[in-house]
């Protein structure tokens, strides 16, 4: 164990601690969802039928692919191929934008149908459906904020790789950003069946 490996591990420990807190944060929301679902099974069933399963699946594939891209970016950097690494980071950012664009169309369609918190149409529906859509916007919205933050973080990493301040000998920033991005993917892996698939 040299000093550089210790510093790298300390950074990794920090990001894993943060990931643990994120698991508890989203876990709390999952618990809330489960309890309301238990109390209002019929309304949650009706709510989940309103969601677009095709767009949900598309976004799952986009995020899984973006996760692969960031993993390959770190892999390329490790082999000293900085240019290739930068391309993979750029591809990850492109996937993140793709995810947000799909999400935009999804939410716009829901808004047109009057399915947003406090809308007249939604308020006329049973209480359980209001809970379902409240949680839908809260949880996918909070996840969306994480995607936006990820775009910011990955953009900084792209600039750093291109400028040569992230190097094969000093990849910690890119590795830790990658860990954060994989977390965003994992959260969606659970949100997708919860809202789109289980009816």
């Amino acid at each position, binding site marked *: 164990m040299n000093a*550089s*490996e210790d510093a*790298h*591990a300390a950074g*990794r*420990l920090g990001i*894993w*601690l943060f*990931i*643990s*807190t994120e*698991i*508890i944060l989203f*876990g*709390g929301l*999952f*618990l809330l969802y*489960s*309890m309301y679902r*238990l*109390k209002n099974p019929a309304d949650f069933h009706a709510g989940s039928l309103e969601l677009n*399963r095709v767009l949900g*699946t598309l976004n*799952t*594939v986009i995020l*899984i*692919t973006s*996760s*692969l891209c960031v*993993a*390959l970016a*770190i*892999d390329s*950097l*490790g*082999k*000293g191929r900085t240019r290739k690494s930068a391309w993979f980071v750029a591809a990850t950012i492109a996937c993140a934008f793709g995810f947000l664009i799909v999400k935009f169309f999804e939410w716009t369609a829901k808004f047109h149908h009057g399915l947003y918190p406090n809308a007249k149409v939604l308020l006329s529906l049973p209480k359980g459906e209001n809970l379902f859509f409240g949680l839908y916007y809260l949880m996918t919205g909070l996840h969306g904020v994480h995607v936006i933050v990820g775009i910011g973080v990955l953009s900084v990493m792209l600039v750093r790789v291109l400028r040569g301040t992230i190097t*094969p*000998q*000093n*990849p910690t920033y890119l590795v830790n950003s*990658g*860990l954060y991005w*994989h977390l965003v*993917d*994992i959260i969606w*892996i*659970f949100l*997708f*069946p919860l809202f*789109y*698939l*289980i*009816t």
Partner: protein
Amino acid sequence: MNADASREMPDARPHGPTTRSYVAVWGALIVLTATTVAVAGFNLQKIAIIVCLGIAAVKSTLVLFYFMHLRYEHRLIIKLLIPIAIGALAIFIGLTFSDVITR
């Protein structure tokens, strides 16, 4: 073929998976996504909940172990963090469920 090069740069790739295995994991994740969507289409009701969440657990384990290198992590403290977080979550969920169901 770059084995020697990567051995000289231990910081960048500490005994991580190969490029090919990353792509293989991606393939497995796509197949599992297709499976979970197909299962949801069968209208299995209660079983679907268990199958869909089970597949989600397998998918996130793949991401954690291979994409996030948890399988290759050699620091015990980092290895323990995620089981601790999931364990704490299991306690929250277990206690809340036992309360709500028995009312």
